């Protein structure tokens, strides 16, 4: 990890920090169902909205959620990084297969 020398937190560190709290984990679970407004996410928790918004900022800094303004609402959604990683792997695997078949074609054309 390159940041060991500089002390600057990486995305992974921020992500871990974001997950090290029950409220924030509950928000992530809720967002699995889809995008939601910050006020709607805050409802089940017995805390002031500004405190809840701090949790959302920590989640955002950790790359686990993204937020956007929609009128007076702040909409939050899960950043499905894991999905991106998995689909990235399948894409590479399938592209590799396409290459294999092209190479097989070349193998025949070269007269084996």
């Amino acid at each position, binding site marked *: 990890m390159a*940041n060991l020398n500089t002390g600057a937190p990486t995305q992974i560190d921020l992500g871990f920090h974001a997950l090290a709290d029950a409220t924030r984990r509950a928000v992530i679970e809720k967002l699995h169902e889809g995008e939601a407004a910050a006020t709607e996410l805050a409802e089940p928790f017995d805390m002031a909205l500004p405190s809840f918004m701090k949790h959302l900022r920590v989640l955002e800094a950790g790359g686990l959620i993204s937020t956007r303004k929609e009128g007076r609402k702040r909409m939050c959604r899960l950043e499905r990084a894991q999905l991106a990683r998995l689909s990235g792997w399948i894409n590479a695997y399938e592209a590799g*297969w396409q290459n294999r078949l092209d190479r097989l074609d070349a193998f025949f054309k070269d007269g084996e």
Partner: protein
Amino acid sequence: MTMTQTGMLHRTTVLEKSFGVGVAKVFAAWADLDKRSQWNSPSDEVVIKYTEDDFSVGGKDVSLCLVGDQILAEVVGVYHDIVPEERIVYTEIIKTGEGFMLGISQVSVGFTATEAGTDMVVTLQTVALAGGEIIDEVAAGWTASMGKLEEVLAG
């Protein structure tokens, strides 16, 4: 393409290819390890090294995908159905060099004789698993966090 919360992603892809040679030759390019080794690499940079080879129903072959001396992946192929010059059905189990599971693919290969030569259809039914990469990242993250904790405690 759907993601479950259980860390799996599934996809089916069909690849079709026509060759100007007969079915016997195309089938042999799969069945014969010497021939298969000459084309069965996902890219020019990747060298495939077979450590086991058993092209038979129930048989298993094991290969390493190498770039230089770095192991990109270990692939275990298990053959489930082989009908010469007609079809091959097998699974590829793909792990990182450290042994973390990346994914499993069922590969169904069909051969059809045509006037021009052979039509071949390869169907890949793949499940990507949240294994190696994510575990690696978690481990790296913890190592970094522990390192920083040490710095803080020492400071």
